[in-house]
């Protein structure tokens, strides 16, 4: 008799899942010397499932009219720690879930699953659900994409931003034609209203700073093609890679910090080139008129409506509709962080994250991937450091560098141990510390290999000594050879 049948039928089954994951083979265990460049990375994962029946409070919450209400009511009753998921199995006949939907994923760390079919079917469905809400082999592989050889991954895998302790988000308004367009955008308000809630949620993952700028006379690198039929200008998909380069020079690097920058550009095309539309590979116009560049950011083209009368005085004042723009930029931001929603079977219903822009379980997903990536980064950094030490034998390792390396190794080990027991939050913190320590050790100015003389140069200085000394040695060697040869010949002569 299986577990399912023991429980009274119709009672919602509550099932709490601990994701257990173990990471090994990174070569970090033990001492630094064990690191080798060709580490095999492999990951095994384990789920710990705890089944229990619902409490009275949960029962009451599940009695709500719609799934959304039930999700909201269930939130305070769930295990709030990062990485834990709670799934409620509701009876097949329940009206909580809409027709045809058997799995509902809420905004928090909970999901509703319709019981149905055999227990095995339920089990596979639960497994599928846990993978959607935590991680799959492919999402972890994407996090490690820099360490996996080319060709094994799809094009999407390299889209995600690399894990970092912080990110800088820059919104730039490009106005190549300030003579005809005086463009204004209320970016401050838009950032506070739309971007900040998402970043507040993501603040657990990294530090974020947001700024914006307006660039005048910044043009795209491609001249758009005029299309007579629609009397508009078109940018085809294959020319998009050339668009960014000339703009990039104007964007300005972030001189004050070392964090990676995410650029979001709003391009208001020149009067002579508007309206401007972006075409996809099939030649159809892109509905959002925007595209993104992996690990770099996104560009949106914002067409200004032509004035009603051609005699309208220039410059034309334009107020940017920030809702439309931010919708696109936020979608791109999610894409760049790897929060895109994958293709799911039709019976799955995902609740939209609403104004927060990010569901709790999506945050967990990000944390899983980033923790693994951080540990891999630490391993790579320390391996390269060890390689450098192998190459230069007489390099001086200062005490503070050594202590940073020890700290990095200890933090990485503790991160792996925490991951193995499923403590996502502390594992992530430990992995962040490990990254900081290892980077600090690696980029220490005393470890510059140019500070040390290569051995061949040291040898070159002593050439004036070695060369004249070598001459008599070589001559006498030649003489010895000649003499032995002669001695061999002599006995035959004697005969």
């Amino acid at each position, binding site marked *: 008799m299986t577990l399912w049948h023991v429980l009274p039928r119709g009672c919602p089954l509550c099932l709490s899942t601990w994701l257990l994951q173990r990471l090994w083979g990174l070569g970090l265990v033990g001492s630094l010397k064990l690191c080798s460049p060709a580490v095999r990375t492999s990951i095994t994962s384990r789920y710990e499932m705890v089944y229990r029946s619902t409490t009275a409070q949960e029962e009451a919450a599940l009695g709500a009219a719609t799934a959304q209400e039930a999700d909201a009511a269930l939130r305070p009753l769930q295990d709030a720690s990062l990485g834990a998921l709670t799934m409620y199995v509701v009876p097949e006949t329940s009206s909580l879930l809409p027709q045809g939907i058997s799995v509902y994923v809420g905004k928090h760390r909970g999901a509703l699953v319709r019981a149905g079919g055999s227990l095995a079917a339920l089990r596979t469905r639960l497994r599928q659900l846990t993978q959607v809400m935590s991680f799959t082999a492919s999402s972890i592989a994407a996090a490690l994409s820099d360490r996996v050889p080319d060709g094994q991954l799809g094009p999407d895998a390299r889209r995600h931003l690399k894990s970092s302790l912080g990110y800088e988000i820059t919104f730039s308004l490009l106005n190549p034609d300030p003579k005809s367009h005086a463009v204004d955008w209320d970016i*401050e308000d838009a*950032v506070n209203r739309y971007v900040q809630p998402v970043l507040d949620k993501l603040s657990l993952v990294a530090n974020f700073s947001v*700024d914006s700028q*307006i660039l*005048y*006379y910044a043009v795209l690198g491609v001249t758009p093609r005029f299309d007579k039929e629609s009397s508009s200008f078109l940018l085809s998909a294959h020319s998009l890679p050339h668009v960014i380069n000339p703009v990039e020079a*104007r964007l300005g690097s972030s*001189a*004050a910090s070392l964090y990676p920058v995410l650029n979001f550009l709003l391009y208001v095309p020149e009067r002579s080139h508007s309206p401007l539309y972006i075409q996809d590979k099939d030649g159809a116009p892109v509905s959002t008129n925007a595209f993104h560049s992996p690990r770099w950011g996104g560009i949106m083209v914002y067409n200004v409506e032509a004035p009603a009368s051609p005699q309208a005085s220039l410059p034309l004042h334009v107020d940017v509709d920030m809702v439309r723009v931010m919708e696109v930029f936020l979608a791109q931001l999610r894409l760049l962080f790897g929060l895109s929603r994958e293709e799911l079977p039709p019976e799955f219903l995902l609740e939209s994250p609403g104004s927060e822009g990010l569901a709790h379980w999506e945050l967990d997903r990000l944390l899983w991937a980033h923790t693994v990536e951080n540990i891999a980064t630490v391993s790579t950094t320390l391996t390269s450091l060890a390689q450098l030490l192998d190459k230069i034998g007489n390099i001086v390792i200062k005490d503070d560098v050594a202590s940073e390396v020890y700290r990095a190794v200890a933090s990485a080990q503790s991160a792996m141990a925490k991951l193995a027991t499923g403590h996502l939050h502390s594992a992530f913190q430990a992995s962040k510390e490990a990254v900081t320590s290892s980077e600090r050790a690696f980029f220490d100015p005393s470890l510059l290999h140019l500070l040390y003389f290569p051995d061949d140069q040291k040898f070159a*200085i002593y050439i004036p000594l070695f060369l004249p000394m070598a001459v008599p040695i070589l001559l006498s060697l030649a003489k010895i050879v000649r003499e032995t040869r002669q001695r061999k010949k002599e006995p035959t002569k004697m005969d």
Partner: protein
Amino acid sequence: MPRPCWARPWCDGGRQGLTLPAVSHYRLFPKALGRLVAALGVQELHLALTQGFWRTRTWGQPPLQAPAGAELWVWFQPTVMDVDKAWKELSNILSGIFCASLNFIDSTNTVTPTASFKPLGLANGTDHHLLRYAVLPREVVCTENLTPWKKLLPCGSKAGLAVLLKAERLFHSSYHSQAVHIRPICRDASCLAVSWELRQTLTVVFDTFSSGQGKKDWSLFKMFSRTLTDACPLASQSKVYVDISPKNKEKELLEVTPTPASVYEAIVQGDKRTYAVYDLLSPSLFNTSRSLNVQLKWKRPQDSSELPTPVLHAQRYVSGYGLQTGEISTLIYNTHPYRAFPVILLETVPWYLRLYVHTLTIITKGKENKPSYIHYQPAQDRRRPHLLEMLIQLPANSITKITIQFERALLKWTEYTPDPNHGFYVSSSVLSALVPSVIAMKDVDVEQSPLFTSLFPSSDGSSYFVRLYTEPLLVNLPTPDFSMPYNVICLTCTVVAVCYGSFYNLLTRTFHVEEPTRGGLAKRLANIIRKFRGVPPL
């Protein structure tokens, strides 16, 4: 109307609790500099990159002088905890932004002057511990510094006055100085809100006399090989001022074309000036012709076109012989006929010139002149330079000579520059003074006056602020023969190798007793001769 604090030079900060705005959304202000100011707690930043030296005696009072090379002075906000760390970081970032070697600014060339540099913008107080000042006289300024400077302009070099700035013309000149000044200012007269002001200045001296076959006529096209076609659409003011001040009232010596729409008269640096003004924003300017090419023609060849000698000017030189000691002499001229005024002199001397402070003498008109304020900070080897600040009273119509002797230090062999025989630069000394005006000055409205006069606004009607820089000095230090170690290595190695070779030969050679043979050619020749002489052969 009482002037706002910032409109006075050496503003001593009457405002308390000044909060500088933290900005993260930029419109016209360049983001790179804005982030820098915000991240490092900069209150005021002044960076100048200069090629050449402004010849005050022949060119007159400079509108805004800067010492040859790179000059950077920064006031930090009182909230900055570790000023030295912020200063180091700032110079490194600026070095990246402007492609200049500002990263060579370290404690050996940084000083904290106590009196010479006061905040030019709004300031809470003037605690000079928040100030850092450094000059790199070796820095060479060229195109790669101009391009990032132009990029800071909202219109770049695409529109407006900046289209004239083409590197191949600008660096073909006698003097080139580009500067960036960031300071907090009042947004309006009531001063309730504070704004950041970025002021970019460019001073170029073209020598049209030598390049134009002895003619002094010039035009925009001749100088820049370009003309002006429009104003930057973002500009609220875009004007060209041409100084057409008449030398003497009766004779009009010069003529500008096209005829200026307006003429502006002002007292700039104690001198009455007349400017022809071309407002690029006025639509009538480009009505008749599509581009503006300002031309200036002299009506008759001028024989004595000497500019009047400025009231305050200075020169400096190094004297002495040999490579052990020397003397730095500074001459400060006050040509004002009847007014005496004080001047603050700032000397920064690198540590490898060891100043003998007891030899400091200040002589005016044959008599010793006692400075009313002296601040001296001795150098520490490889740590910090000498800093000497003095407040000296200059009597009317006088020359003041300041001399100080020094000894040249021996450097470690790694401390020499790649071209040590070129010499070592000593940065310009700085003169700051409130110079009494010869003509009475009116209280001018700051809003109305042209931008180039408003960085150092005049304090009252009788004097104006001047900051002058003297020549940088080039001092030879005792320089070792850098090839010597290698020569020694070569010589000793050869000697050792030769000894080794002979010993080796001696030890490894086998000796045979050789049978006498018929002998060589010499022996046979000798025997033939002996035969002739009748002597028995060998």
